Every structure is written in structure tokens, then in C-alpha cells.
């Protein structure tokens, strides 16, 4: 056991300073650290910089909570559910946040380089596109001919966020983190970051981890802080544990249409609840939670 320790959601969120550069795990409707984002908003975090791959829902909520100043991202959309992520889009359209675009692979490559301790990544994407043309805030790339073959590649600076906030299914008390389902960019995000906060559904005995070691994505040596909270990805899914809550996602996306309805949403679901279980009560309580439970065979 290196630095791992179990903290409450509140304590873990309190350890995130204003102006931090953070990256959050999750992708689409899967494994986003939603409870942590709600707590960060409650604690009034300011001027956060996001370094994002696909954590659209967590990112959109954090932006809607007024915590974000700058976003480097590859995609913030709600896909087939409602399309645009309105808090994000409005913030950009109104010039309230600084934005820098990448493709998924180029951003994941930057994190991969960061995780490997290299200064840059080489990719073959981006060529000919405005992703290389319209650059506002940071030096994004360099072209270089391979000293071996002479082939030209695009070089991107590696990414090393200050804090990675990772949502996963389970861990042992030492912080060996297991993920079920695709691993998306969790491993690269965690290993590239200086500090890792992981939120899991449950703590299992070490022997359980030892009998399923191939599901361990992050050994405890990469995990600094562990938070244990059931249904903490809600309204997103946690494969093998619960499905996403489409009903609440529509509540969310409808609320994000106007400032008035959005303020009401924050009051009801972010500022209002006395704790995470009160939040679960407000989104439908026991009935809803039982409805979202995963089918043990399907995993959702």
C-alpha cells in the first residue's frame, strides 16, 4: 500500500484546489464521476481547466455549475440521446470558456505519452483539418520528418493533468481498481496525472481482486484517494451494476435549455440534497434504483 486512502466524497472533493487542471474518466453514458462533479459544484470550485476525452456529461455538468474556465477536448456531445451538450455549447458560444479542440485519438495519444513519461506523441490524424489550423490558446503541434524513414508525422505535446478523477466499479481497500467493460481512456488519464482520485461502487476483499486480476486496470500504486459510494455514476451507467437513467438524462437535458430551468435543476439535484443518498431519493429513490439495477446476465 503506497499512498492509498479512503476518504468521503466531501473530503476528496475538498482536496481539489481551484484552478486545477483535471481530467475525468468516463465516456458517453458510461462511468462518469457524476457524484464527484455534483460535490465539486456544491463546494464552489472555480477556474478549473478540463483536459477531456469523452466525459461529456461530467464536463457539461461541471461547466453548468460554473466551475470551468478552460477546456481542451475531443468531444462533448450527448450522442443519440439529445445531441448537443447545451451547457458546454452555450458556454463556448457566449465566450465564457476557452476551448481547444482535438480528435479522440490525438488527445488519447497526448495522455498516453504523458503516461509513458515522454514529452510528445506522434500521430497521423489531424492533417489537412482545421484542428491544426484554428488554434487559439496553446501550441498544439509540430510536424517532423522521421529521422529513420523520412515520413512526416504530426507531433503533439504530451498531457499531464494535475488530477485525474476516475469512476470505476470496484476496488479493494488498498485501492486496486477494477473496471468492467471497455477501459476507454481511464488507464492513460490516471497514469498521466500527478494525482488520482477514484470513486468506486463497492470495496471487495483483496482475495476477490486476486482471483480476477485481469479486471484490475489500476494497481493501487497509481491511486491516491479512494471514495466508496454506490450509484455514484448516476445518471450514467456502471456496467455490471446499473444502467443509465434515460429519464433523468432527459430531465437534465431539458433543464439545460434555459438559465431558469437550469438553476432549478441545480437547486433540486446539486445544492438541495443533504448528501448522496438524499440525491438518490430525489431522482426516484428505491423504486428507481431497483429499476436501474443491472440484469446479472446482461450487465445492464
Amino acid at each position, binding site marked *: 500500500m503506497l499512498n492509498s486512502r479512503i476518504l468521503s466524497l466531501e473530503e476528496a472533493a475538498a482536496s481539489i484546489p481551484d484552478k486545477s487542471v483535471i481530467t475525468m474518466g468516463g465516456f458517453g453514458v458510461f462511468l462518469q464521476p457524476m457524484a464527484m462533479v455534483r460535490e465539486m459544484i456544491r463546494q464552489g470550485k472555480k477556474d478549473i481547466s478540463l483536459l477531456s476525452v469523452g466525459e461529456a456529461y461530467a464536463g457539461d455538468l461541471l461547466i453548468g455549475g460554473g466551475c470551468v474556465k478552460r477546456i481542451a477536448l475531443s468531444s462533448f456531445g450527448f450522442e443519440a440521446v439529445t445531441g448537443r451538450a447545451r451547457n458546454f455549447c452555450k458556454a463556448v458560444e457566449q465566450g465564457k470558456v476557452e476551448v481547444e479542440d482535438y480528435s479522440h485519438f490525438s488527445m488519447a495519444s497526448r495522455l498516453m505519452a504523458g503516461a509513458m513519461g515522454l514529452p510528445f506523441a506522434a500521430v497521423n490524424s489531424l492533417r489537412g483539418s482545421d484542428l491544426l489550423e484554428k488554434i487559439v490558446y496553446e501550441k498544439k503541434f509540430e510536424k517532423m520528418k522521421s529521422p529513420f524513414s523520412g515520413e512526416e508525422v504530426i507531433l503533439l505535446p504530451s498531457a499531464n493533468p494535475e488530477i485525474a478523477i476516475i469512476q470505476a466499479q*470496484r476496488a479493494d481497500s488498498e485501492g486496486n481498481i477494477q473496471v468492467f467493460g471497455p477501459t476507454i481512456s481511464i488507464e492513460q488519464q490516471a497514469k498521466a496525472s500527478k494525482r488520482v482520485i477514484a470513486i468506486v461502487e*463497492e*470495496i*471487495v*476483499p483483496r482475495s*476477490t481482486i486476486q482471483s480476477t486480476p485481469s479486471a484490475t486496470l489500476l494497481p493501487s500504486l497509481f491511486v491516491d484517494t479512494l471514495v466508496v459510494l*454506490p*450509484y455514484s455514476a448516476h445518471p450514467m451507467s456502471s456496467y455490471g451494476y446499473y444502467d443509465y437513467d434515460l429519464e433523468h438524462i432527459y430531465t437534465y437535458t431539458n433543464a439545460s435549455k434555459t438559465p431558469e430551468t437550469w438553476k432549478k435543476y441545480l437547486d433540486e439535484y446539486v445544492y438541495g440534497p443533504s448528501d448522496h*443518498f438524499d440525491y*438518490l*431519493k430525489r431522482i426516484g*429513490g*428505491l*423504486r428507481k*434504483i*431497483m429499476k436501474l*439495477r443491472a*440484469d*446479472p*446476465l*446482461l450487465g445492464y
Partner: protein
Amino acid sequence: MQSKLVSVQDATKTIQSGSKLTIGGNTIRRHPLALVREIIRQGIKDLTLYVWVAGIDVDMLVGAGCVRRVEAAYVGMGPLGLASNVRRAIQEGRIEYEDFSESSMLARLRAAGMGLPFLPTKVLMGTSLADHASHAKPIICPFTGEQLYAVSAAKADVAIMHGYYGDQYGNIQWPLLRDSDDIDTVIAKSADRVIVSVEQIINPQAVLTNSTMTYIPHNWVSAVVETPFGAHPGSCDGIYDPDMKHLEIYSEAAKSDLTFKKYLDEYVFGSAEEFDYLEKAAGLAQLLSLRVNR
């Protein structure tokens, strides 16, 4: 396959007062308590219970005055000791009670499942059980001439039990890891009709490729009901532990008729449906904390 998925209310409505009932589970484990609570709410009376190693299920039904007669190998609350309602009812002569041992009660349920009037057993020889049991008679083996007891078939009108997972057609499945201290398959075979409540209704397409886990097939089942935490405050092997906090409340209440009536008013009659009961008796945070780490 035809869907047999119904509500708790509709499932229990089919049980007549005066029925013979058999119940799955063991002590405080995996009894169909959501169904039991609804039986109490519906005021079904005069039941005869054929049970094996029973517990809170029988105690609750007896305490609510639903029961005329019990035939069992055990009624107790496991780590919490005696089943107080049953004990009081027997001591005060309010119910008829007939004792069997585990294997002789099993033989009676098996006989029912096999369509036989009785099965022979060696176990009751010399015990006081045999002296008092109207459903055990000495016989001589026609082949060897040895002395045996015949125990009569315990054929129930309805079996109620709590399964782990099941699809809408009534294919009831085990989880990967389970304990096995029950005779639910025997109980399912012994009755005319089988009502199964399950923790969760699962996808039938996935069941087709996971069929070795099905322990009660759909064609044995007449109704299936989804009751999350349906064995609460008891446990459901591998899914959640017993709720000791609520079991203590129950055990305390069961110590007198007056306090148990208050318990029933508060938790059973006072809850229009099972979700209300669960909110009142435990609440979401407590229920989630009972889940067994996988």
C-alpha cells in the same frame, strides 16, 4: 413460452383462505416475505403450512393470525433464537402443530412431488415424534419384514418461494455463488401451483444461453413476481445479508401479541406496497449496505 409476470397483489389473490401452503427458504434466509406480507394484508386465513426448516415466514403468518396448522421440522430465527409468535401460539394452544425431522418432512414433500401417497422412512423409530404424528404410521416392509414408518405426502395447494433471478416466463436461476441450505426444488415440485417471487426479472434471451443455472423451469411455475429485497429482513444468498437491525425490531415486537400487532400495523398494513415497506423498514442507504460484495 407465455409470460407469467404478475403483481404481488395478483399473485397472492389466487390463494384461498383454508388453503394448504408450502414455503421455500430456510430460517431467516430467502423466504418469500413480500408475498407473506401481502397474504397478511389480504387477510387470507386458516392456512395449513407444510414447511421444512422454516423461520420468520411462518412466524409472521402465525403472528398475523393467518394460520390454523403447521407441520414442520423447525421454526426458528437462526442467530436470533426462537420464533416467538409460533412459540406463544403453540403454548397457548392457538394453532395445531405437528413435528417432523428434516429427512421425514423432506420425504413427505418428496412423496407429494412424486405423486405418491406416502414414503417409507427409518428415522422416526422410537421418537416421541412418531407417537404424536398423525402423518406417520408404522409399517412392515413387504420384502424384508423390517419395521419402518410411512409418512404421508404433504401435498400443498400452493407453493410460494423467493428465487434469485427469473425471466418473465418463470425460468428461475441461481446466481454464480450461492449457499444451498434449502429444498426449494422439492418444494416447487410438491404443490399444485407455484408462485415465485424473484429479486429481479432478467432477460429471457440471456437465460437461453445460461440454462444450467435454471433450477426451476418455467413449466413448473404458475406466476412470477418481481420483488426487489423480497426476502427482507431475511437474506438472499450471495445478493444481500440479513438486516439484523430490522430483525431485532421484529424479534422484540414478536414477544407479545400487543407489540406484534403494532409491528404489523406499522410495517405491513401501514405500507400500501412493498416499496413503501422497504422505505419504512430500512431505507435505501441501509438496503444498499446489506448487498454482498461480489
